[in-house]
């Protein structure tokens, strides 16, 4: 037995609620294998009524037809409103009053049939097959079979959407990370095994914790490359939970993994040295417990070309810049004192006036000097309306 749903809305989801074998026949038509449903609901009309009830619950307007073959069900669902049960063996009689346009023949064939005065299924069904084969060819024969409700074919089933999710309802709330790690490991291993059986990996893990205070703690872990390394996943979750522990004991754990194709990378003898991405992610998660760690983005403006033979004299920045007291002699800095910096200015270059953000509401302008102090070091100092500052030392 086959059922056809014709209408608007999420028909595929409705179909999967009743059968694992669902064909998306057209954007507005879904056909499913309904064999065996009679054991659950009884007669075909009860099966159809169950489908109609469910459609009404999820607010999907749909025509439902049940028949012994998929094409008869499709024709009936498209042709008759509401619920139709096509009796087995009497398909031709049941479908007879439907107009031929429901079979979607080619325009030329439809025009020919119109000229012959054949407008309904029953007219076409009554024609002799030999004559149709001679005059209309294979397409005509196929239309006749459909009109008689005798066409037999297999469904082309949709693959059900792959979902890799699992959950654990806890009898007693868990508030320590160690027992939680065991539960997470169980979920991770199960999901990873399911992914592995389908030759898939994951690049995103989601964790949803229901807490005793009725709040929900949702977290996401994005991986730099697809992987199935459950030990690394567990360690990453542990580090994340240790850094940001849930505010209340946990009563329910839900975990989901995003399925993606595994990474295919070709190693090589001459490939430059680089950290393994997942291992680096783990290292960074550990480091970030006490420091900031990131790959430096390139500067917005490209630096000037460097003289290839000599190193560049670089600046060591003081963060934040150190407030300084500067004694001025003849309009130039003569003595500088700041935290860890003190001395007479022996040589200087400047001032270099720089400004920026003048197109915004917070413009800035300052005068910079490169100075050599009597303490033996070279510094960059600057003066702005707030005062004098030591920006860093040349080293």
């Amino acid at each position, binding site marked *: 037995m086959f059922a056809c749903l014709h209408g608007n809305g999420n028909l595929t989801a409705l179909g999967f609620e009743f059968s694992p074998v669902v064909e998306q026949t057209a954007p507005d038509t879904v056909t499913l294998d309904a064999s065996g449903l009679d054991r659950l609901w009884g007669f075909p009309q009860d099966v159809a009524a169950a489908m109609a009830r469910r459609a009404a619950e999820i607010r999907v307007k749909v025509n439902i037809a049940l028949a012994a073959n998929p094409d008869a069900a499709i024709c009936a669902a498209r042709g008759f409103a509401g619920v139709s049960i096509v009796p087995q063996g009497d398909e031709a009689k049941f479908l007879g009053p439907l107009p031929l346009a429901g079979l979607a023949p080619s325009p030329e064939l439809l025009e020919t049939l119109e000229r012959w005065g054949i407008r309904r299924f029953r007219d076409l069904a009554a024609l002799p097959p030999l004559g149709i084969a001679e005059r209309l060819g294979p397409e005509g024969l196929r239309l006749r079979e459909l009109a008689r409700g005798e066409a037999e074919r297999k469904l082309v089933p949709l693959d059900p959407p792959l979902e890799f999710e699992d959950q654990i309802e806890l009898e007693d709330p868990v508030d320590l990370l160690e027992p939680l790690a065991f539960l997470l490991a169980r979920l991770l291993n199960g999901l990873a095994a399911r992914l592995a059986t389908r030759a898939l990996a994951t690049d995103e893990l989601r964790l949803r914790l229901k807490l005793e205070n009725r709040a929900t703690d949702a977290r996401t872990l994005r991986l730099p490359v697809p992987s199935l390394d459950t030990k690394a996943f567990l360690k990453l979750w542990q580090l994340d939970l240790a850094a940001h522990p849930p505010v209340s004991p946990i009563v329910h754990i839900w975990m989901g993994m995003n399925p993606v194709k595994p990474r295919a990378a070709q190693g090589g003898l001459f490939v430059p040295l*680089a950290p393994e991405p997942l291992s680096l992610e783990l290292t960074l998660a550990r480091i970030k417990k*006490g420091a900031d760690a990131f790959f430096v983005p390139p*500067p917005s403006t490209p630096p000037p070309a460097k003289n290839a033979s000599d*190193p560049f004299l670089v600046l*060591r920045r003081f963060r934040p810049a150190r407030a300084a007291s500067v004694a001025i002699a003849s309009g130039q800095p003569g003595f500088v004192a700041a935290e860890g910096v003190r001395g007479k200015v022996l040589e200087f270059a400047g001032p270099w006036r720089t400004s920026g953000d003048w197109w915004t509401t917070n413009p800035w302008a300052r005068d910079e000097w490169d100075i050599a102090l009597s303490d033996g*070091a*070279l510094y960059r100092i600057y003066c702005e309306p707030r005062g004098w500052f030591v920006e860093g030392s040349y080293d």
Partner: protein
Amino acid sequence: MSVATLKKQFESMLGASRLSPELAPSGIPEIALPRGCLTEIVGPASSGRTSLLVSILAAATAREEVCALVDAEDSFDPVSAAAAGVHLPRVLWVRCNHNAEYALKAADLLIQGGGFGLVAMDLGDTPSNAARRISLTSWFRLRRGVEHTPTVLVTVARQSNARTCASLVLECARERVTWSGARGTSQLLRGMRVRTRSKTCSPVFTATAI
């Protein structure tokens, strides 16, 4: 009898034939850094040690190696580094917020993680007494971690702290600062001539500002 002769005699007695480590170029012709070893760059402020470190970073990133810079005092200037030829997207910058102890821990984690061509730890602005407080055991652990790996481990500090754990110590000293133009009107900081000194050589390089 010199120490080198004694060491040679001792090694020949033991029958040990030590393989010399692979050397990585530093960007300065006469200086090469041993892989799998700890190298210390030491010197006072404005002695050219950071310029040497950035030159090493530039050379490593030019070889397309991934580098890590553990910055204890948050003093790294990406603009200067980019101007010096460092390919910044290949540099992992770890900012330790003025915590030398954590810098050591971060360097250890990076070495254990593996895969870096260069791990540099900058303790250049860390007060001398704080740097001296780092135990020899910690340095030994770093040395053992980097052994038998192709990673170059470099530290920058005011004075040598790792003592026997360092395979190479490069002492930087400023020879002179080059200025151009007339004093007070059009003077420019042109660069700095730096002499580095190690057990085997004492090359000189000039760090140019412009």
